[in-house]
């Protein structure tokens, strides 16, 4: 059939072709396919399986076909149901155009620019492109065929051609393309027979395999090789945590007006109850805080205080530079020309503002620190008692202000500083109390203080002395008072333990009491001194003028009674070199030198005024000094003059002031004297007042102590030999004032 169509002129062929498409659509025309094949004579023909085998006659039959531009197969009255209108309505008629296949190809024409470039590139690369799929190759083979089709068409235009022409044309193609030519020629030559065709095709395929080295395959969508790599996929995991939900609680209540009211009342009552406590607590807290702060401040202040003290001393040293020089180095040159007589050079005056109107009641050098001395301030006048007293410790390094100040409620009458513990100061007060202070710590509060009516003296304490430590190491002291008792005070763990040592009954003092009982009179003690060698023995001077020699071992009996003075005995002092010798002074203007167990004095000196104090010099066995209410200091050297003082010097104005107490410095040649105006004056002893014993030429090895003792012994032997009462007895030498 195809061949027949081919026989028809070109125009009809053309028309047939277009009708063929229509026929194809209609599902009819196998013949149409043949007609198409007419253009593809070079190609192998494919017959549909269901193609009718027609006889020659049938084939020769003329079939008239009318070609119309309209599509006969179109459905004209197509309806769809319209829900809007509730009826079937005509659907718009589809157009006459029927699209059978739409295919956007990526195929390249072998002769095109693109293809050429690709070939060039692949050559440049120099390795064969991936092997294409065989089927793909075949499909590709078709495409050049298409190109030939165009050629063929041109020839058709030339005026139609027979099969021979086509063959000839085929040859031309053969020339161009060997491979293809052969393929098609084979097809042609063998004519029909599908078996053969298949064989041919495989042969062609085999040939195609050999080709690639010669001819490169072009890259298009069919010519590719897929290479894939799959990375391992990490398995997924779920990690999650859950927080603990915040804890919950339950609460419930009922609010009613009475509940509110009651709660308020209850709370208010509680508040008032707690109010007081809270205030107290707060106060306590505040006090504590304050205490903490003040403790720190105090520590700091102590540091500052030390610095200031040093600075103060430096300033004082500068101010009193000349006095300091005198104090150390000045020796009065006039002494050489004054036969045996000396004088006193006033040095510093020590005073304290608060004690200006008080009397100096006692002066005592510290046994350890030679420059430090204690001054007690009180009043000797019964009518003018102050309600305060002071113990001031001055140092000669700072004349302007005391180093330690202890204030008391009553006048301080006496004091003593412990020899072993030079920071322990004990004071006796006018009101009969005693107190112990630790100078290293606070000077404001006493370490010990006597308490209670039975644990104190009934009257003014006149003298107080540290005793030797008790056998079990307890520190103790003795005190004597106008109430006629001598007490021993022991410093216990936290209190003072007091025992009565002796009561100073008068020898003939038993008088009738108001209700017929006998009352033994007591004599008020006014001074006391311990024996330097035997600590059990002590002397007590009384206001009646007696001196009793007592022992701490027994209280009932006096070892000795000296009828010493006509008035109150003010002070007793033992000689430093011979403990059998002591000196006493009293209100009867006299100073007497006694020997132990001798009822009569060895020397009597009348100083023309009440003698407040008398002291042996620490450097010489024959020198002692006394102060009088006239304001004079008398210095005696028995070795030089047995009858009168070698120095009498007024230190304070006669009528306005009186001297009360005196103390020798233990190390240096100066004395301090206290007066009634609260001033303590230091005086330097001139060389004549401190004459040392020159050792005899034969006995140069003897030390000063031995010499001093022998000097005193020599002197004593002179006095002892004197007939009793001949010179001295009650015939006091009056010193000219």
């Amino acid at each position, binding site marked *: 059939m195809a061949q027949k169509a081919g026989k028809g002129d070109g125009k009809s062929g053309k028309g047939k072709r277009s009708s063929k498409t229509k026929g194809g659509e209609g599902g009819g025309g196998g013949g149409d396919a043949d007609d198409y094949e007419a253009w593809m004579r070079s190609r192998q023909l494919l017959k549909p399986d269901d193609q009718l085998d027609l006889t020659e006659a049938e084939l020769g039959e003329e079939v008239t076909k009318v070609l119309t531009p309209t599509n006969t197969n179109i459905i004209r009255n197509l309806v769809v149901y319209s829900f809007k209108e509730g009826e079937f309505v005509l659907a718009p008629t589809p157009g006459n155009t029927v699209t059978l296949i739409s295919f956007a190809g990526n195929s390249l024409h072998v002769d095109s620019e693109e293809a050429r470039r690709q070939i060039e590139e692949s050559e440049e690369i120099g390795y064969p492109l991936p092997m294409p799929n065989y089927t793909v190759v075949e499909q590709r083979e078709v495409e050049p065929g298409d190109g030939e089709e165009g050629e063929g068409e041109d020839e058709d235009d030339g005026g139609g051609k027979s099969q021979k022409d086509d063959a000839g044309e085929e040859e031309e193609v053969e020339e161009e393309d060997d491979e293809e030519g052969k393929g098609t020629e084979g097809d042609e030559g063998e004519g029909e027979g599908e078996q053969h065709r298949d064989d041919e095709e495989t042969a062609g395929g085999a040939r195609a395999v050999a080709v690639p080295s010669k001819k490169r395959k072009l890259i298009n969508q069919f010519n590719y090789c897929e290479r894939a790599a799959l990375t391992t996929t990490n398995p997924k995991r779920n990690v999650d945590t859950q927080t603990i939900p915040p804890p919950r609680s*339950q609460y419930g209540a009922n609010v009613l007006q*009475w509940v509110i009211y009651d709660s*308020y009342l209850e709370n208010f009552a509680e508040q008032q109850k707690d109010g007081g406590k809270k205030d107290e607590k707060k106060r306590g807290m505040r006090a504590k805080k304050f205490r903490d702060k003040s403790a720190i401040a105090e520590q700091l202040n102590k540091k500052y205080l030390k610095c200031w003290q040093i600075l103060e001393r430096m300033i004082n040293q500068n101010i009193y530079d000349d006095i300091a020089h005198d104090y150390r180095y000045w020796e009065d040159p006039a002494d050489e020309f004054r036969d045996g007589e000396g004088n006193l050079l006033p040095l510093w005056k020590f005073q304290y503002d608060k004690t200006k109107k008080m009397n100096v009641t006692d002066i005592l050098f510290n046994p350890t620190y030679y420059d430090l001395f204690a001054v007690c301030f009180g009043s000797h006048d019964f009518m003018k008692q102050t309600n305060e007293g002071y113990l001031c410790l001055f140092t000669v390094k700072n004349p302007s202000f005391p180093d330690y100040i202890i204030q008391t409620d009553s006048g301080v009458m006496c004091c003593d500083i412990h020899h072993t513990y030079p920071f322990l100061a004990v004071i006796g007060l006018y009101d009969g109390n005693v107190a112990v202070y630790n100078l290293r710590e606070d000077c404001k509060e006493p370490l010990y203080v006597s308490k209670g009516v039975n644990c104190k003296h009934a009257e003014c304490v006149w003298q107080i002395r540290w005793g030797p430590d008790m056998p079990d190491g307890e520190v103790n002291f003795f005190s004597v008072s106008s109430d006629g008792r001598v007490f021993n005070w022991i410093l216990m763990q936290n209190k003072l333990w007091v025992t009565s040592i002796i009561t100073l009954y008068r020898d003939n003092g038993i008088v009738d009491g108001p209700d017929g009982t006998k009352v033994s009179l007591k004599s008020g003690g006014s001074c006391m001194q311990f024996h330097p060698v035997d600590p059990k023995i002590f002397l007590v001077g009384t206001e009646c003028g007696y001196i009793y020699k007592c022992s701490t071992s027994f209280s009932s009996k006096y070892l000795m009674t000296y009828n010493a003075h006509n008035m109150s005995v003010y002070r007793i002092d033992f000689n430093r070199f011979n403990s059998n010798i002591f000196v006493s002074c009293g209100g009867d203007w006299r100073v007497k030198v006694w020997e132990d167990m001798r009822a009569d004095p060895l020397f009597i000196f009348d100083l023309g005024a009440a003698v407040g104090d008398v002291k042996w010099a620490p450097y010489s066995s024959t020198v002692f000094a006394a102060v009088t209410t006239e304001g004079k200091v008398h210095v005696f050297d028995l070795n030089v003059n047995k009858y009168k003082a070698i120095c009498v010097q007024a230190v304070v104005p006669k009528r306005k002031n009186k001297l009360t107490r005196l103390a020798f410095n233990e190390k240096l040649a100066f004395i301090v004297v206290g007066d009634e105006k609260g001033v303590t004056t230091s005086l330097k002893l001139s060389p004549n007042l401190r004459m040392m014993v020159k050792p005899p030429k034969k006995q140069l090895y003897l030390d000063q102590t031995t010499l001093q003792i022998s000097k005193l012994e020599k002197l004593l032997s002179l006095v002892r030999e004197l007939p009793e009462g001949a010179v001295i007895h009650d015939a006091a030498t009056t010193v000219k004032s």
Partner: protein
Amino acid sequence: MGDEPEGGKEGEKKIVHVYPLVKHSDMNEEMRTEAIELTIMACEKYSSNYEHAAKVIKETMDKKFGIYWHVVVGEGFGFEVSYETQNILYLFFAGNLAIVLWKCS
């Protein structure tokens, strides 16, 4: 309210306390102080409108201590709540007001 006549009987004796009285609270010191201050401020400012006062308290607490605060201001009510521990304040104020604040999210 039924107790009012009783209050009247006491007459002169009765003292009306108006200071804030914390009836129950497990808040920490800082939060409680702030909450009390806030409550007083709000209740004094909106003494005529408890709803408004409660709103102000709630919003401010939400801002300051995280959301989901609940506030009740009233003169008489009962409540039974579950709250996040350490987040409740139940106080009386001005003599007749009870305020409950609690947090629960």
